[in-house]
């Protein structure tokens, strides 16, 4: 896939737009007319050519603009990147993993050369070249986790496995859907998943934890999660809630097409070698209702999912204020026809 990196913003004037190719490859998450929270984990095996799951880590046309947005958020709030002292092995594992993945899968954009422990990393889209000694933090301009966390799209959390659970002991979180790293860093699995509705009844969290505890090297897994955002804003953090919260009031049945966005998170989990930690990657994809309607099948599907969504989920996902406006905007595409199972655009 040829990558033409866009210049666009995810704040202020919100110039972010998806090209037709980006719309077509969007990871639409709804195979059925009804949605209920589930574990829905599957092996992270290479997807079809051009799909967001084709490679280990996905780099797309928004790469440069997203890295820029991430840098702005980190400058304004350094607390969005945190790593507890015992996580240094995991940080180096993460650096090795991200550099090797990007260099292998996007050789035109990235390269990594090694001479024993002396490595050289080149990131052409961001114009970076760095020689350093693997394992020696003094030879990098910042910690290994932050260094590469800034150069890959999406958020990352490093999970330490101990005491029969997983701990979120490091994170770089600038595009999250409404949770705070500064508050959550150091929490165990059940603690940080505390505020998710309905799940205690279903035991979903217990089963997911048990599964992840046996995650193996060489056998990563993935799942999709989704929510909605008004304006193509990446930084929908609790920290900046005063900046973006009010946008929910601006949506009506006429402008919902432009303002309302479906936000899909591709979550992938990888077991790391030296630290035995798990890398949790949360990669965010945004699409406006207008862009989604390029494919009427998607518009019909999402119309039904949103209209019939369980009230607890509506509230938890912050959709309450504009749910009806978006449903109204989408309704014109829905003739009630049976469109069958599956997430395909057509």
């Amino acid at each position: 896939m040829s990558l033409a990196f866009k210049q666009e913003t995810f704040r202020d004037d919100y110039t972010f737009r998806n090209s037709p190719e980006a719309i077509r490859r969007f990871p639409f998450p709804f195979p059925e007319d009804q949605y209920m929270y589930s574990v829905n984990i599957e092996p992270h095996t290479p997807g079809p050519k051009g799909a967001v799951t084709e490679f280990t880590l996905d780099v797309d046309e928004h790469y440069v603009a997203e890295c820029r947005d991430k840098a702005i958020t980190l400058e304004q709030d350094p607390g969005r990147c945190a790593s507890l002292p015992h996580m240094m092995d995991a940080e180096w594992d993460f650096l090795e993993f991200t550099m090797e993945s990007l260099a292998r899968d996007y050789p035109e954009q990235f390269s990594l050369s090694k001479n024993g422990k002396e490595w050289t990393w080149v990131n052409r889209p961001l114009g970076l070249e760095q020689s350093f000694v693997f394992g020696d933090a003094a030879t990098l301009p910042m910690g290994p986790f932050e260094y590469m966390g800034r150069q890959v799209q999406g958020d990352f959390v490093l999970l330490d496995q101990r005491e029969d659970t997983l701990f979120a002991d490091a994170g770089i979180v600038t595009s999250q859907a409404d949770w705070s790293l500064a508050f959550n860093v150091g929490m165990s699995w059940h603690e940080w998943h505390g505020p998710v509705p309905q799940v205690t009844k279903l035991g979903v969290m217990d089963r997911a934890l048990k599964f992840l505890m046996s995650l193996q090297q060489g056998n990563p897994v993935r799942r999709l999660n989704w929510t909605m955002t008004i304006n193509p804003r990446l930084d929908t953090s609790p920290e900046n809630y005063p900046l973006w919260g009010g946008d929910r009031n601006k949506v009506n049945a006429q402008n919902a097409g432009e303002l309302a966005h479906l936000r899909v998170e591709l979550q992938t989990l990888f077991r790391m070698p030296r630290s035995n930690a798990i890398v949790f990657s949360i990669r965010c994809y945004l699409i406006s209702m207008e862009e989604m309607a390029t494919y009427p099948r998607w518009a019909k599907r999402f119309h039904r999912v949103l209209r019939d969504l369980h009230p607890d989920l509506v509230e938890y996902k912050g959709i309450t204020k504009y749910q009806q406006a978006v449903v109204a905007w989408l309704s014109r595409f829905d003739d009630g026809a049976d469109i069958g199972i599956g997430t395909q655009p057509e």
Partner: protein
Amino acid sequence: MSQLQVKVAAIDDVSAGVRHFTLVDAHGGELPAFSGGSHIVVTMPAPGRTYRNAYSLLSSPENRAHYEIAVHRQPQSRGGSIYMHEQVKVGSVLDISYPVNLFALSRVAKHHLLIAGGIGITPFMAQIHDLERLGGDYSLHYGFRSREHAAFADALKARVSQRAVCYDESLGQRMDFDALLRAQPLGTHVYACGPQGMVEALVSTARALGWPEHHIHSEQFLAPPVGEPFTLKLSKSELEITVQGDMSMLEAMEAAGVDAPSLCRGGACGRCELEVLGTDGELQHHDHYLSDADKASGRKIMPCVSRAKCGYLELNL
């Protein structure tokens, strides 16, 4: 599940009944790095049946050129270790799992107390590399029947002399678990690996002295015990399989082509747990994972090590 292929590069006998194997990547590349305490599951394609046994990696976790394992020959077993001793030669190619760690060092421990018995020394050898690299505070206590049974003792003493204490049973030297545990400062984690009796004694002493559960770590590779044959019915797969006396339920299912989940294959991790739908006999639990209540309920079983004395056992798979 993705696997690795390795070739045996060297074999040597290091002590009575213990054979040391050096494994390299079969395609000439680098092997994955791992964390100390990890093991690999080696697939042994014997005629008529496939063995799969877990062996701790004892080599340096940073060394990606080769892996090292040590196999203790167990005469009264299903035959996996005998296969390793008799059938595997220099040049043999084997399928192995990626390294899996169910016996990891705690990254928040202030001190690490390592207790090894006999062949149980193997995971600690890799962990010591990690501890030295990280500057961790640790001490190793290594008990064995006699110098003949002390695989790697000399190499260890040379490497970590001040931090290792050896106990030669034939000279009357014995570890005093009570005294050892009472002397540990706050924030110590204890790790035990070795014969079942030793590990159980260490764990129960630590509990009696008030050590919190998460400060106590142990690894025992339980070999699935042999028993009498019975019929295994799998309700969802609609299959009936004969479980022979000398193979585990898990092995019987795998031989029949069933995709049964598993991980440690030694009754410790919980991954293979299955629901029991019915039986005309009694369950024989040999695992360390299920609670007493779960075992008594008769509704769950760990097929990697447990069996049943029955005509048939039906599982929900």
